[in-house]
């Protein structure tokens, strides 16, 4: 058996689904526990029970668009790192780009290219160690330091609730400004997607959703589709 076949076979072993499933299960467990905490708090704080349900639905619906993107990326990633690992890495922290970089870095450390004939089971192990170690960075930091982040936020806001609201908005704008800057610098297609996505959202929220509040739930999905149509249209016409 060639190295490539060996690596392919090992990374698609049936038992791996179970082993990867354990971590996916931890994520599911956390989600279920937090939903229970929400329903408990809804009762204690006498929040209208319709509100958390509505919020859950908004999350469920608005994630469909981005999840379709993840779906496709996942199929690509399955080809390069195997089904079970792709499922594990994209179900928990990790974007395809990060995981592919980590897998590549692992191969680099062995002095070979990912997926080449020289990429042995030992190199595969290095790639997998690299992905797990990298992911652990975020998980351990948030697992340990999140309460300190809360104190940090309280310190920065100084107890001024109005400023806390502005602060949260400004932080979000900053981080999305950064994410958008990265997209804009990729090229005209991406810039169009960013701009039309942003403009459609503003128009939707300010006009259409005011008249039809029910549409607000779908606003993000609609804006995303409009942004994508413009970008793909540009590609079709000019590329």
């Amino acid at each position, binding site marked *: 058996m060639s190295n490539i076949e060996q690596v392919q076979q090992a990374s698609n072993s049936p*038992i*791996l689904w179970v*082993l990867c499933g354990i971590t996916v299960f931890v994520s599911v467990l*956390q*989600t279920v526990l937090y939903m229970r905490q*929400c329903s408990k*708090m809804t009762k*204690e704080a006498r*929040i209208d029970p319709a509100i958390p349900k*509505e919020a859950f639905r908004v*999350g*469920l619906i608005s*994630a469909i*668009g*981005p999840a379709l*993107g993840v779906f*496709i990326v*996942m*199929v690509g990633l*399955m080809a390069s790192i195997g089904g079970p690992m*792709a499922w*594990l890495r994209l179900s*928990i*922290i990790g974007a395809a780009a990060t995981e592919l970089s980590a897998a590549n*870095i692992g191969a680099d450390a062995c002095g070979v290219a990912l997926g080449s004939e020289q990429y042995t089971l*030992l190199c*595969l*192990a290095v790639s*997998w160690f*690299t992905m*797990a170690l990298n*992911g652990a960075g975020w*998980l351990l*930091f*948030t*697992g340990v330091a*999140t309460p300190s982040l809360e104190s*940090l*936020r309280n310190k*920065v806001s100084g107890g001024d609730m*109005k400023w806390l609201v502005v602060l949260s*908005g*400004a*932080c979000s704008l*900053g*981080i*999305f*400004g950064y994410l958008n*800057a990265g*997209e804009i*610098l990729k090229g005209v297609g991406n810039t169009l997607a960013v*701009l*039309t*996505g942003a403009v459609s959202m503003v128009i939707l*929220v300010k006009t259409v959703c005011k008249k039809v509040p029910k549409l607000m*739930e779908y606003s993000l999905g609609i804006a*995303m589709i409009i*942004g994508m149509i413009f*970008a*793909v249209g540009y590609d079709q016409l000019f590329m």
Partner: protein
Amino acid sequence: MNEKELMKQWKKDSIRIGSPTNILAALTAFLPVIWLCTTYHCWPPVSTILTAWGMVAASFGAFYFVEPISYYAALGMTGTYLGFLSGNIGNMRVPCAALALDVTKSETGTIQAEVVSTMAICGSIVTNLIGTTSAVIIGGAVLAMLPEFLVAGLTKYASSAIFGATFGNFAIKYPKIAVFALLIPVVLKMFTGLPAAAVIVCTVFGTLLIARVFYQKGMLAS
């Protein structure tokens, strides 16, 4: 119980659930590689693993700290645990949570806002799991059926469009701050060779500083 006590209780429960699960997931993620090395007797030399770890930490290490800090204001405590375990924070978790707060007209900092953003993130995690799991089962077949431009659109532009739309949604509330939030990283990325993590830090703190000045001068409509 009053709002303050409820919030205290909420945070205590959040930590009790989130901290052990995130740490546990960091550990269980090593199970596949341990199985691989044991079954195929292919334990790599420790030095190779350390080299790879060093290389990956050089590329992403700063993000382990910068991202949780920068996203904290948008995600809150529960959202931080959920978001950093399930990933897809920028393109899924924050947009969903922010939209849910708008739809339910919940005010930042209240217990209702905590419940609402947590539920929205939970909803988005369910969708994501369905997405990745169905990709495993039917992914190849579906991809073969989709026209190429659609696949290209989803892989190349889905993130751009959702980032843009989410930015637009935040910009409605603070258009003046939004201008700077976009300008700072574009300029930094175009004209300086700063590493990505440093650009995030400068953008988030720069934006925060400008917001503070506007806020103190009363230039922000509330």
